Each structure stands twice: as C-alpha cells, then as structure tokens.
C-alpha cells in the first residue's frame, strides 16, 4: 500500500499515535507524510522523540507528547519541542513524561492486554507528582510498595523495518528497541519497510511480526533517514548536526518545512 494511502487510512486528527524507533529504524518518512496530510491534535507517543517529532511538533500536528527523553542525540536540544513547551509555539504542547523503564513497561502492559504494569521506579523523584499515569501498588505477598504505570492506549503505531514478504510478514534486526511492543500495544499498526521480498530469510537477532498482527505495510526505501536501517543504510550524523541550526529559528524552520516536507511529493 502506498504510504500516503496508509497514513490517510490509519492516522486521524485527534488520534494517539506512536512512531517508535530507538535511534535505529525511525519511521521518519511516515512522520513527514503525517505533516503533509496536515493531521492535527495528535497525541504523540515515543520513548525518545527526536528530529521527526521535532518536525511534527513544529508543524503543529501535536496537542500532547508522551515521552521519556526528548533531545537531539549527541547534538543537544530539540528546539521545536522546547519552543512549544516554553513558548506555546506554534501551539501549546501538553506533556506527560516518564522514565524509559516506565514507558517500556507501559508498552508491555498494553501489548499484554493488562491495564497496568509494575516496576521498581520513580521512587523519590518529582516525576510522580507530574503524571497521573504513575501510581503505586502494594505487593499482596510481601507488602512492598511498587510503582504502577498505566498501559498506553494507542490508536496507531508506526515503525520502520528492513523487510516484509508479500504476505505482509515483517522482519527487523539490529537494535530492535521497543517496536514489537509498540505494534502489539496499538489498535492499528503501519510498518514501512526498506524492501518487500518474496520470502523472509531468517536473520540472527531478528524480530518477526506475523502479517495478521500488522494492519498495513508500505515499501519506503530510506524511510528511516536520517536514522538508519541496519544492513541497508548508515546513520546520517551530519543531518542531526545540521538540524540544530535549521530548527533553532522559527522562520528558518518554517521555510525548511515548506520546501522539504510540504513542498515535497509523497513518498
């Protein structure tokens, strides 16, 4: 299915959407398609929002962000993310933040059909007071108090993987992060892939998602750039560095967005 069609069908204004990827396999092309289709009021979910979420926030797609670490890895701040929170530009951005451990377990709970997950976490931090999705529970065996985090309720998860076969079975390898849980946590899942192959040949360390657990697959070679796809491409570190200057200034960002995203055709 073409990416534009998949996004039109699976992402609606007001949806809670997770574009996951842990440095590796970030579904950047899909995020830009969401910008082009001018989606609004999205609740964006991701452990490590980076450039693609900075773009979506700057473009005004997001009403809320649920995350655990928001930065430009190895470079510095996400300026659009900061501008939205510090100055409500282009729109106010509500945030719900967690630790990585908490976010990971919120995905796991949803993927498991449970309303919440347990962890040893948050104790003594100011994060507890800031998020209604962090509470506590007492162990019925030992009496210990543990942190409880609510399951993430996601409408659509989008990930990027190396391969899918013609039946829609998906295979990804290298750093696989939280993507499997993110897909299983959502009501709908879109996977963009580097390549559609006749048959998946097993790869060491690969995670395979059966076709019946995925709503749609779109072939988007290079769809993770400037992040990378292990075995297909290298991370474009220069791009992350250059993003700092592009995103720092509203005018320059707006001009860039018009030229590079809104102006560009659909993948």
């Amino acid at each position, binding site marked *: 299915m073409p990416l534009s069609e998949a996004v039109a069908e699976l992402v609606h204004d007001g949806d809670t959407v997770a574009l996951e990827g842990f440095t590796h396999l970030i579904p950047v092309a899909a995020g830009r398609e969401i910008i082009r289709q001018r989606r609004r009021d999205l609740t964006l979910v991701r452990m490590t929002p980076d450039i693609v979420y900075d773009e979506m926030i700057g473009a005004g797609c997001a009403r809320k962000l649920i995350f655990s670490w928001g930065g430009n*890895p190895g470079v510095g701040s996400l300026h659009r993310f900061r501008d939205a929170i510090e100055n409500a530009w282009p729109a106010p951005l509500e945030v719900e933040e967690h630790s990585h*451990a908490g976010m990971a377990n919120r995905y796991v709970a949803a993927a498991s059909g449970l309303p919440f997950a347990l962890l040893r976490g948050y104790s003594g931090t100011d994060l507890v007071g800031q998020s209604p999705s962090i509470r506590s529970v007492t162990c019925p065996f030992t009496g210990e108090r543990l942190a409880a985090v609510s399951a993430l309720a996601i409408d659509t998860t989008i990930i990027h993987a190396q391969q899918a076969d013609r039946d829609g079975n998906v295979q990804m390898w290298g750093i696989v992060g*939280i993507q499997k*849980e993110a897909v299983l946590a959502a009501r709908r899942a879109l996977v963009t892939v580097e390549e559609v192959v006749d048959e998946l040949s097993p790869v060491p360390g690969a995670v395979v998602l059966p076709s019946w657990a995925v709503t749609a697959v779109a072939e988007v070679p290079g769809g993770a750039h400037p992040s990378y796809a292990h075995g297909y491409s290298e991370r474009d570190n220069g791009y992350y560095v250059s993003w700092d200057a592009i995103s720092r200034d509203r005018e320059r960002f707006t001009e860039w967005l018009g030229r590079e995203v809104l102006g560009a055709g659909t993948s």
Partner: protein
Amino acid sequence: MTIADVTSDEMMAVTAARSLRDGAVCFVGIGKPSTAANLARRTHAPNLVLIYESGTLGAKPDRLPLSIGDGVLAETADAVIGIPEVFNYWLQAGRVDVGFLGGAQLDRYANINTTVIGSYDHAKVRLPGAGGAPEIAASCGEVLIVMNQSLRSFVERVDFVTSVGFGRGPGDRERLGLRGRGPVKVISDLGVLEPDPRTCELVLTGLHPGVRVEDVRAATGWPLRVAPDPAVTDPPTDTELTVLRELVATLESP
C-alpha cells in the same frame, strides 16, 4: 607533556575511567560515560562489560559510538535484547554494578535534575527529561556522576528531582526502597566529590592538577565541605591520553 595540554574534558574522562574496576558490568550512556568506559576497557579494564540502554549487552565498539543506538554496538555485542528486557531483567534485577549519570543540576545530596530549569509549568529551560536515569540511580550497584561544575550546575536545591542521589539525607534511599548504594563519586572538571558516609553530603575529596579549593568553592552553590587534605588527581599518563585521543578522534560529529 605538561598538564596544560590536558583539557578538562580529558581530565574528567581519565578520572572516570580510573573509577571503573575490571570485570564490572557498566550501564553506559552516550557522551562522557561512553568515552570513559571505552577508555577503561582499552587500558586497565579489558573485561569491563558495557551495557547500552539501546539493548546491547557486552558491546565492544572499536570506535566511540555516535549514538546510543549506533550500529557498531549491535555488531559487537554478546547479545542484543529488547528495551523492556534491558530495564526489567538486567537493570531492575540488580545485575548492573556501575551506572553513569550526568545532568544540568546537582545538589549537595547528589540528587540530579535533567528535566527542567525553572518551574515545571513555566519552564525557563526545558531539558530532555529522565531517560534511563531514575532507574539507573535506583538500581545500579553504585553510581558515578560526571558533570561540569559551576554555580549554575552545582546548586543548593535542584529545581526538579529527576534522579535520586541521597534524597534529603541519611536513610532516605532505604526508606524509598532504592536498592543500589547510590552515588559514590562525583567527577567534575575541577575535582572529585564523595558522599560523607555519615551525612550523605558531598565532600570535596580530590582536586585536579592546578585547581585550588577556593576555585571549587566558587563553583559550588552550597557551603562546600572539604576533606582534611584533598588528594590531587594524578595527571593522565601518556598511555591514557594517547588512547583517549585516538578514541575521540573516531568521532566525526559531536
């Protein structure tokens, strides 16, 4: 070479690397921690086990990774695992000996802020947030903190407690159910601070070459306690400096 040739970043990296014992299991973040850990692995601690939160157990990068999810980590790891397993099976279960932390603000009890400068609802500066830090601070056997020291960063009270050091003092870690020992050392560009075993307050116990106690006091936002006679950090050996600079040279970008 003279100490003048050594940058404060290099001094911090070398001091941090020396704090890692061979064979330890180390939870590593990108930046100074990764540099220090890889320096240690190439010098006195060849059997140091590096875990990056991206899911690589026992990574052995031949160059400094540029990001937490750098491909070189997966290629050289003993095992690549999913994120939930990293935090649940390995970190939370207490299998990590040493964790590294840094931050924008640190207080006298080694509590760290990486969330916000100013009030949460009216942020002066919105920082990246927690990442893996709160549970690293809670569950690692011990924690090393590496950060630059100034009145802006070493403050009387952090604006937001993202990661707990010793809370408000003795007994707080136990009361909060934090299982690791907590911070054992703060390594700054000026020297080394260690918690007083009795009060949990950070005390200046080491000075980097050429740094005076009053320099450190001037860069600390609380009345700093100083050990009887703070040790002067040994300057980097030629080997340490050579290996470190080779490593850093492998970084083509910040």
